[in-house]
């Protein structure tokens, strides 16, 4: 966290708020576990998003008051949630038909690494003693219309997460559309990473220094 503080980048909440601004009204959105969950707190004025959780609910609402939770009304992170008016429950095959069939507009995911070709690694370190666990991440990136990654720009030890080529096992190949980090908003383009917007007070060069692949400047 000290690394991030040094660069005076966006907070996690600011990253989430910035991302939410790019979601059109009426979008169907799946939020991954961790920072992506924060996006639900920031619905821009005049818009409404419908949240999908792959364990079987469309129209997921906020967490209930402490103690009000139903152990059988949970999200993909297995936390208690609520259901908004207009919600629907369904089984897993139907839920992943929505995902695989391209019916969701947006998947927001965390990342361990993103390559300049849009490859994503976010499910396994690949270490021999790790217990492999994948959940729905590979389905989400294979089926949802757009994939946004929200992540700290670097690891806690300062290594770049945006790289030429992922060293960790892939979740999907060429599927990330845009990255929201604490330092910048960056598109994955056929030419590679392109800065869309810099965090106020952060300059292009300092982002490039923290990125493991060439950055293209914002288009004018």
């Amino acid at each position, binding site marked *: 966290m000290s690394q991030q503080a040094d660069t005076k980048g966006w907070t996690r909440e600011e990253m989430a708020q910035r991302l939410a601004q790019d979601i059109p009204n*009426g979008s*169907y959105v799946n939020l991954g576990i961790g920072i992506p969950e924060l996006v639900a707190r920031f619905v821009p004025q005049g818009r409404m998003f*419908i949240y999908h959780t792959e364990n079987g609910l469309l129209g997921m609402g906020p967490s209930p008051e402490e103690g009000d939770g139903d152990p059988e009304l949970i999200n993909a992170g297995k936390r208690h949630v609520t*259901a908004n*008016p207009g919600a*629907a429950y*369904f089984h897993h*095959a139907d839920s992943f*038909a929505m995902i695989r069939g391209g019916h969701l507009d947006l998947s927001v995911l965390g990342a361990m690494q993103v390559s300049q070709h849009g490859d994503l690694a976010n499910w396994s370190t690949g270490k021999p003693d790790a217990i492999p666990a994948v959940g729905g991440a590979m389905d989400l990136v294979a*089926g949802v219309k757009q994939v946004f990654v929200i992540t700290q720009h670097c690891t806690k030890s300062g290594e770049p997460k945006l790289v030429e080529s992922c060293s960790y096992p892939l979740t999907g190949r060429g599927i990330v559309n845009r990255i929201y980090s604490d330092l910048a908003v960056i598109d994955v383009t056929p030419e590679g990473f392109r800065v869309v917007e810099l965090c106020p007070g952060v300059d292009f060069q300092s982002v490039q220094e923290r990125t493991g692949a060439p950055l293209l400047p914002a288009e004018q």
Partner: protein
Amino acid sequence: MIDKRVVSAAEAVADIADGSSIMIGGFGEAGSPIELIHALIDQGASDLTVISNNTGSGQVGLAALLKERRVSKVICSFPKTLNSTVFPELYREGFTELELVPQGTLAERIRAGGAGVPAFYTPTAVGTPLGEGKESREFDGREYLLEYGLTADYTLIKGLVADIHGNVLYNKTARNFAPIMASAADVTIVQATTVVEPGVIDPETVVTPGIFVDRVLEVAEPAHESELIAAGECYP
């Protein structure tokens, strides 16, 4: 802030272009979205591919769309019904092409199209004329055919209750192809007897979740094909 209602059947189908593929719900008259089909006749689009279990009866609804020579191809399991004279004539004349698909394979192809499954294997039609020329493969010593997912530009269906987010409930066996067709088209248009606010439909009972629905039209007193035919109606 999400309201998928349209004010008229004409608005609902206004953008359907010549050459479009359209899935139309219904098994016989149960679930046939007659008002939407009639609006499509008025709208004028032609050279359509229609995916539907039957080809309509009499000279109303789907049969009327065919009779107006708007449909160049049907993908269908059972194109002859009692009172079905329109399609047989167009088929014999060579105007309307037929792709005959077993009913369960048709349903599964539509479900696969909506679920992002490009192809699957099925035992249905092995060793029959409808299996001829199809790729086949053995699994555990039994032969199966490769069948492909089916999608369309539009789906027209009939519900009983819909909310403005597009969640839909159906009436009895009118459900038939509607939920899977809703999932398999770029634009799904629902006519429902009653349109309600979100929250009226119990989330445990939703049959088609709103994510699959783009436009909702209230048709409070939908016509029934058999009643129109009994009354001697022809459309337009």
